[in-house]
């Protein structure tokens, strides 16, 4: 595996697009939190702020806030993964890697390495964001309470990246895979959730990305929903299990497609 990691590093070390995407991904985790903090701290009148309760960037709520905000922008890492994978098909280097001495499973492992690495980059960036916002913008002392939210976020990023990988492997063309990924994450799944919830009830909340969203409600919205009497229909374990099942299924499709068909 170390050899595979070294080779993947050689592929991206001097690839400008990769570094631009990484920069954008990191910015997409920090920037929205700055904007939201600005809206809550500066634009909501000081007299109205006590009505909202403690700041969403105070510990322990900051764990939930940063994780929830991050779940909206993590798709950028999916776009980077699609680019990395479909580049191989465009340049036919996936074939050359096999010809030169990789097993087909090594090729899949090399892309799974990026799923894990990009998820960890997003996770670590979010962790740093929690410390920055909780320490510099929050008023409460550091606390690990609610830190489980950031692990929910990690799992949701892995689901999102697994979906991106699966689309890239199946579609092979960069543009089409990106359009399908954006279309699914931004519109299609929301539409499916709406239809499913309307026709089959709460099971609609178990769709791949929605399962993560159900676990990562934005703190203010959660408060409003609680006031309205809304309760999360399933235990957290159900959503976590659903996400793990999606990851396993998507990775299985990737392995199956790569190891059993012509390249």
């Amino acid at each position: 595996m170390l050899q595979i990691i070294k080779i993947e590093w050689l592929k991206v070390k001097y690839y400008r697009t990769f570094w631009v995407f990484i920069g954008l991904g990191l910015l997409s985790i920090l920037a929205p939190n700055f904007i939201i903090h600005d809206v809550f701290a500066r634009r909501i009148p000081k007299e109205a702020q006590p009505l909202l309760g403690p700041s969403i960037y105070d510990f322990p709520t900051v764990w939930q806030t940063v994780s929830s905000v991050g779940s909206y922008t993590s798709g950028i890492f999916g776009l980077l993964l699609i680019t990395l994978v479909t580049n191989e098909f465009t340049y036919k280097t996936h074939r050359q890697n096999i010809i030169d001495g990789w097993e087909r499973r090594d090729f899949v492992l090399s892309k799974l390495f990026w799923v894990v690495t990009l998820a960890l980059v997003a996770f670590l960036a979010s962790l740093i964001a929690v410390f920055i916002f909780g320490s510099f913008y929050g008023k409460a002392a550091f606390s690990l309470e609610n830190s489980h939210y950031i692990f929910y976020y990690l799992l949701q990023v892995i689901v999102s990246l697994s979906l991106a990988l699966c689309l890239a492997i199946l579609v092979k063309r960069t543009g089409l895979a990106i359009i399908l990924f954006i279309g699914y994450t931004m519109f299609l799944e929301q539409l499916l959730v709406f239809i499913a919830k309307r026709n089959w009830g709460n099971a609609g909340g178990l769709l791949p990305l929605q399962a993560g969203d159900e676990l990562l409600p934005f703190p203010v919205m959660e408060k409003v929903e609680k006031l309205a009497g809304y309760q999360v229909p399933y235990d957290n374990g159900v959503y976590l299990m659903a996400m793990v099942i999606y990851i396993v299924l998507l990775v299985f499709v990737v392995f199956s497609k790569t190891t059993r068909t012509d390249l």
Partner: protein
Amino acid sequence: MSTILSVKNISKMYGSVHALTSISFDIPAGSVFGILGPNGSGKTTLLGIVTNVLMPDVGTFTLMGAPSSAVQRRKIGTLLETPNFYHYLSGYRNLQIAAAIKQQSEADIPRVLELAGLTARQHSAFKTYSLGMKQRLAIASAMLGDPEVLILDEPANGLDPVGIAEVRNLIRELAKSGKTIIMASHLLDEVEKVCTHVVVLRKGKLLGSGPVNTVMSRDNFVEIGSADNHILGTIIRDHPAFVQLLPSNEGLLRVTFNETVDLADLNNWCAQQGIWLNHLQMSRKSLETAFLELTNN
């Protein structure tokens, strides 16, 4: 002589098209093995299966006496179809990736770049290379680690005449050093000059395999001409050793005999029949003629 590649009953279909039908042959170690066939005959499909980028529908093959695996492929230098490299990386960095996958030392990269004549452009991005330079980089990559076996699919693609001659000389030098070279090519002149063995494919079917002269009969023929070749063509059929008239060009007749004929005797025989020859030459059928005869039958 041991076997480098043994192909057994390999078949492959693309939809309803039979790309390969029950192909079986062996490639002996140390041979320069040409895979010949017209466009669409299945040459690249066959090499794609051997290099594990395509899956056969039926059949098996062994490489160096063992079932195909990454370990075997690392010992083979392969250039399949087009040169496949990362466009945004330089030639040198692309070779670093190839060397890492082949588990070869990067110390060999300068040697193969020099061999391919790319030392001066090694730090330029691959996307800035000409077609010929891309092909040279692919050859350099195949040569990494000085493999004992090379698979070259149209190695002269995109090269200028000097480049073609260089590749031909390189293949000869490699063959002399005892390496096994498996080469698919349209350029029969190239194959004729370097190959010891061939397999001939047409529409996915095997027409023959083995030593070049066994697979493609290339008997000597005599080229004759007279003032009236029509009469000469009729009379020559009465020669006691006559076998057949080959397709001719430039108004001459190409005749094969069932034994070696002495040209003076033949000239004398024609004179006795009242025909005076103005052209008489012993020749050998070109590989191209033999190939066309074989693949058109």
